[in-house]
Each structure stands twice: as C-alpha cells, then as structure tokens.
C-alpha cells in the first residue's frame, strides 16, 4: 500500500465526514452537484467527437508522416534525434495516439536506451494541448483561444529540449 493509493479514500471520507459534521444534507447535495456534472459532461461530447475525428484522420491518412518527413532534414541538422520526431509531433495532438507511438519507440529501441529514456521523460512531462483546449474552451463556447496554443507549444518545445539535455546528463 503506497501513499497515492490512500489519497482517494481519505479525500472522499474526509469530505463526507466534514459535510455531516457541518450539518449539510450530504446526499441531496451530492446528487444535485452530480446532476450539474452530468450536464457538463454531455455538453463537451461534440467537441471531443470533432477533435478526435480530425486528429485521427490527420495521423492515420499519413499526413503526419509526410510532415515528419519534411521536418526530418531540419531537425537532424540541429542534432535532434529523428527517432523521436513522430512522438514529439503526435503528443500535443492525441493522448491515445502518442501512447501507441511511445510503445513503438520502446519496442524498437528498448526502454533503457537513450532514445527510450528521452521518450519516457517527454511522455511524462507533456500533455495533449489541442485536445485539452478543444474540450475546455468548447465546454463554455469560447472560440478565440488567443495565445493559449502558442504558449502551450512553447512549453512543449521546452519539455523536449530539456528532456534531451537532462537524459544526457543524468544517465
């Protein structure tokens, strides 16, 4: 039993216990809040559907491979390992897709190689930028994201650069 396994039961128990202690009608409050959550979840479905269709089409049609092919000469010129290019491109787009790409990297180069370690660190410290933006902003009907994607991609670039350097230094 480790600490992270204990967080959930403790948190749930604590909130419910404190609710009872403060004299809240716990059951009706829970159901009332859950109704709101159900509505919000249904509201974001079209946004999830739209982004998943576009991203899967982009990756599976070979468009992503083509763009990776164009970028390859540029990235190898600056010393970026070509083996990681696909992962770095797919991760901001799709969580499921990047897991598949990550698994391929592990199978091809092994988890304890430099490439495998870099891929692991990149996976562990980056997020699906486009999917999250589509869902979060979509849920409240915002279409002008302003600088969010730009800043997200900057931080993604920082993740990749830092992962390459840190893995070189640590291992």
């Amino acid at each position: 039993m480790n600490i992270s396994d204990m967080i959930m039961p403790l948190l749930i128990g604590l909130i419910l216990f404190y609710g009872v202690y403060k004299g809240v009608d716990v059951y009706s409050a829970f159901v009332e809040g859950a109704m709101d959550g159900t509505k919000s979840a249904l509201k974001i479905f079209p946004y999830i559907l739209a982004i998943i269709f576009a991203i899967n089409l982009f990756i599976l049609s070979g468009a992503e491979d083509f763009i990776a092919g164009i970028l390859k000469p540029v990235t190898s010129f600056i010393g970026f390992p070509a083996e990681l290019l696909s992962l770095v491109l797919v991760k901001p787009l799709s969580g499921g897709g990047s897991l598949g790409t990550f698994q391929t990297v592990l199978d091809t180069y092994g988890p304890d190689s430099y490439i495998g370690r870099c891929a692991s660190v990149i996976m562990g410290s980056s997020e699906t930028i486009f999917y999250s933006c589509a869902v979060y902003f979509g849920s409240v009907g915002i279409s002008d994201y302003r600088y969010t994607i730009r800043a997200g991609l900057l931080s993604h670039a920082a993740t990749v650069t830092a992962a390459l350097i840190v893995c070189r230094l640590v291992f």
Partner: protein
Amino acid sequence: MNKLWLGLIFLGLLFSFINKSPQTVTNVLFFEIEKSVDLILNLISIMAFWTGLMRVAEKTNILNKLSSALKPFVGYLFEDVQNNLKAVNAILLTLAANLMGIGNSATAFGIKAMEEMQKANLNKKRATNAMCMFLIINVSSIQLIPLNIIKLRADSGSSAPSEIMVPTLIVTIFSTMVAIISGKYFERKGS
C-alpha cells in the same frame, strides 16, 4: 480553432487520396471516433461523482478557507478571477488533481472552473487572461509521478522502470515555468 480543425481534416482527406487509401476516412468514421464515446462515458461518471462531492464540500465552506490561504499564489497567476471564490476553488482542485495525475477528475474540476470563469467574462467568445493561464498551465503537464509511463516501461522489460522519475520531475518543473513565463509575457503584450 476553426482553421486548425479544417486544416487537420483537409490534410487528412488529401493524404488519404495521395496514399491511395481513401478507405482510411471510412475507417476513422466507423472505428476511431467510437473512442469518443468511450471517453465521454468514462468522463460522465467521474465528472458527476466529483462535482457531486464538490457540492458537499462547497456547502461546508472548507474550500473557501483553503482558497483564501493560497490567495497570493492565485492572485498572481489568475488576476482577473482572484475574488471569485467558486472559480478559484475549482482552479485549485483541477491543479491538485493534475499534480496527482488523476486526469479524468482533473477534467471534471477543469470544466467547472471554466464555467465559473465564463460567468464573469464580458466577451463570451473570447478567452480571458485567467482562462488562458489556466489552460497553459494544464497543458504544460504538472503531473508529479508519471505512473502510467513507469508501468509501460516495466511492461517493456526495463531493468529500472522508475529511473525516469527524477528527470521527468525536473523537466516538468522547467516546462511549467516556461509555460507560466510565456503566458504572462503574451498577457502583458496584450495579444
């Protein structure tokens, strides 16, 4: 988003023809987008559960006390909502869930946070500074322990699956700092 979405689709359609496999489109339509239903089904139950529990917590006032304690931090990052307690509560819960790596619960709190921030938004189509910062921090990844990645490494026969924990933490902290700095930079620039 409109342009990006159309761009992904047009490129996808184009390349399915160039690569002589227009059936890819049909496959995506019939097999891939099914996954959106799985996603939403997983999300509905966990979102309903956490918003339910959050309502209980709201009625006890305990979240407001926690949020007030963290006010200086929140005030700097999310200036325009710092006095909106409901939004601040949901923001902090989202960040806490993301730190612990419970993604679906984080989404539940995150949507709630967006709804609270949207209430005070004057232009309903345009993201506020606080919304942008909120998204930027979330998409920079702030997860402390990448359990799923360690699991996949172990499954692939790694001799030390968790050796990437410390490097990942360093990289996560660095990229989140870059995220906050660039978010604040664009905010000040007024873009």
